[in-house]
């Protein structure tokens, strides 16, 4: 049966229309400023508002959908009519979002994604639907039951099969996860920039007065400022992570993985295990100290650019428990005794050297800063060199079997261990610069699909022998 969205979708349409046309509204406001001041303001506002409301209602009225036996059909478009036909078997991921303003009404936003590459967003977006629609869609996807034979009501369970494995985040783990998040770094950078600018903007007399009141102890002021920035950064980052991952729950039902999370807005993602392109065990240096790991999934699905790239299957777990969780939740058996083949010691130097050279670009810029902030350039160099040492020690690979490869790459004090099946590798690239040829070293890039694009996993400065080993593994059938 063909249905309309919930009437609240008109408000959502209106919001989207206003956001899409905000630029034009500002342009009209600026260019016709004088006309608007001559008593035209209210009539123009009423006219534009009326037009937008009419547009939103028309959009709502022309958007219909039908959940049929084997597919979801959507009709939309005011002037040019579109018909979207999505067979349930082709659906890769379903995202059920429940923003805070829809929660009291028990309504949801649905995003349905297939593996199609033509769009940069979900193939189907149902702006506001009732829980009954969500349940009906979930049931049809699971069993493709005949819509005529079974009536689905608000009491029908969302997922008929029982969970075969579950994971719930513990409060203690969530706290450690939030406190060890590297989300603090951008917050600190922004705050440092503001403090540096404040020093420039504030009148010099005022700044000297502050310094005098601390009896010329500029180092004390610096220490207080740094501590203040650190504490505020930590609090902001902690709150961000807590809101995002509150009541995180993951469960597996047969081949379906369900993940739900969020404090104010609840988000639920449903995906088929067969659609996973790679599994990434991610560890920041801080979490490495606490032996904590995050499990992320690289999926093949189209997605809005605003959303996170990877799906987090387990936000935080002890490294010793992760293998068991992977087996239960993702049905992946991992070789527990694996040992990575690392970058040979004579090649580790290149990581350090490259980071040092890149840091010089920032250092040259920072030397122009006022004292004592310009002095931080020394710290930047030390940080870059240490990051280089960290990356060189945490890069490696392991060939588990004829079909599975482990690749570990490192970013700024973060290491990612990718578990990839050979048939999910889209292409394998070897790079060698002119000056690397003499040493017979290679850079490796393994391309894996991520959402609608590509994720390139890079391992730099492998020896010829290591490169040969990976290449012959890849080309063996």
């Amino acid at each position, binding site marked *: 049966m063909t249905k309309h969205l919930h009437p609240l979708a008109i408000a959502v349409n209106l919001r989207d229309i206003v956001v899409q046309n905000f630029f034009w509204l500002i342009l009209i406001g600026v260019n016709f400023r004088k006309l608007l001041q001559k008593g035209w303001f209210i009539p123009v506002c009423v006219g534009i508002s009326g037009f937008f409301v009419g547009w939103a209602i028309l959009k709502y009225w022309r958007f219909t959908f039908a959940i049929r036996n084997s597919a979801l059909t959507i009709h939309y478009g005011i002037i040019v009519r579109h018909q979207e036909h999505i067979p349930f078997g082709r659906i890769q991921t379903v995202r059920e979002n429940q923003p805070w303003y829809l929660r009291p009404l028990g309504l949801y936003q649905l995003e349905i994604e297939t593996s199609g590459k033509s769009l940069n967003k979900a193939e189907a977006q149902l702006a506001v639907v009732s829980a009954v629609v969500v349940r009906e869609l979930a049931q049809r996807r699971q069993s493709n039951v005949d819509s005529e034979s079974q009536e689905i009501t608000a009491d029908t369970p969302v997922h008929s099969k029982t969970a075969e494995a579950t994971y719930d985040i513990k409060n203690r783990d969530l706290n450690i996860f939030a406190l060890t998040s590297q989300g603090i770094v951008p917050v600190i950078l922004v705050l440092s920039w503001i403090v540096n600018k404040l020093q420039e903007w504030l009148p010099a007399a005022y700044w000297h007065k502050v310094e005098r009141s601390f009896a010329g102890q500029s180092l004390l002021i610096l220490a207080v400022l740094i501590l203040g920035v650190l504490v505020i950064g930590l609090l902001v980052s902690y709150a961000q992570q807590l809101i995002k991952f509150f009541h995180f729950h993951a469960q597996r039902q047969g081949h379906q993985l369900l993940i739900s999370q969020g404090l104010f807005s609840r988000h639920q993602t449903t995906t088929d295990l067969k659609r996973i392109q790679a599994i990434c065990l991610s560890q920041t240096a801080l979490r490495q100290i606490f032996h904590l790991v995050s499990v992320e999934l690289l999926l093949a699905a189209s997605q809005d650019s605003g959303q996170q790239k990877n799906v987090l299957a387990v936000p935080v777990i002890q490294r010793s428990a992760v293998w068991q969780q992977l087996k239960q939740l993702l049905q992946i058996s991992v070789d527990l005794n694996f040992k990575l083949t690392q970058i040979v010691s004579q090649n580790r130097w290149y990581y350090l050297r490259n980071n040092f050279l890149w840091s010089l670009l920032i250092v040259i810029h920072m030397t122009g800063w006022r004292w004592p902030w310009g002095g931080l350039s020394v710290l930047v160099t030390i940080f870059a060199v240490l990051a280089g040492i960290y990356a060189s020690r945490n890069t490696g690979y392991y060939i588990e079997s004829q079909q599975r490869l482990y690749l570990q790459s490192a970013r700024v004090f973060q290491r990612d261990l990718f578990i990839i099946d050979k048939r999910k590798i889209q292409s394998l690239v070897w*790079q060698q610069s002119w000056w690397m040829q003499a040493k017979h070293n290679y850079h490796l890039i393994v391309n894996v699909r991520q959402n609608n694009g590509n994720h390139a996993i890079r391992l730099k400065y492998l020896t010829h022998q290591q490169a040969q080993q990976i290449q012959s593994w890849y080309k063996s059938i």
Partner: protein
Amino acid sequence: MQSIGPDQSQVLEQLPEQIKTTWRITALMNGFWLLLPLVGAILAWQFWRWPIWVVIIAGCLFIVLPAIQLSIVPYRYHFTGYLISNEFVTLQSGFFFRKQVTIPITRIQNVTLEQGPVLRWQKLQAVRIDTAATSHHIEGVSVKKADALKTAIVRYALEEQDD
């Protein structure tokens, strides 16, 4: 042609000689685009009293970049090639930064033949190979060869498609 990848026993096929002409024309066309910042810098120096070193840098770029591109054409040709087998497509390119790509036939989604005016003049066709995540190019082969390549890749892909 010898492989630059880890498996150096592999022998790749070289592109036709005419590809060198297309690269030389591309280098000259790049030089033409660099003429714009040079003219801009001269005008800014004349009318807004911009420093002379801006003109010198723009002038150097105008001469040096196309000159480098033109001079490395024989070397680039020596290192560019491809190999199509029952299971893999291997592509190789670059001189200063060499690259070898291995694409399993089963991962290929589609093959597209492309031909701009320069390639058409030289009776060549470029071949674009798309996977679900990446896109790769054979810069130019003869029209007959391009068609044969497309047919071969599609045939292998249909035979080997595993999911």
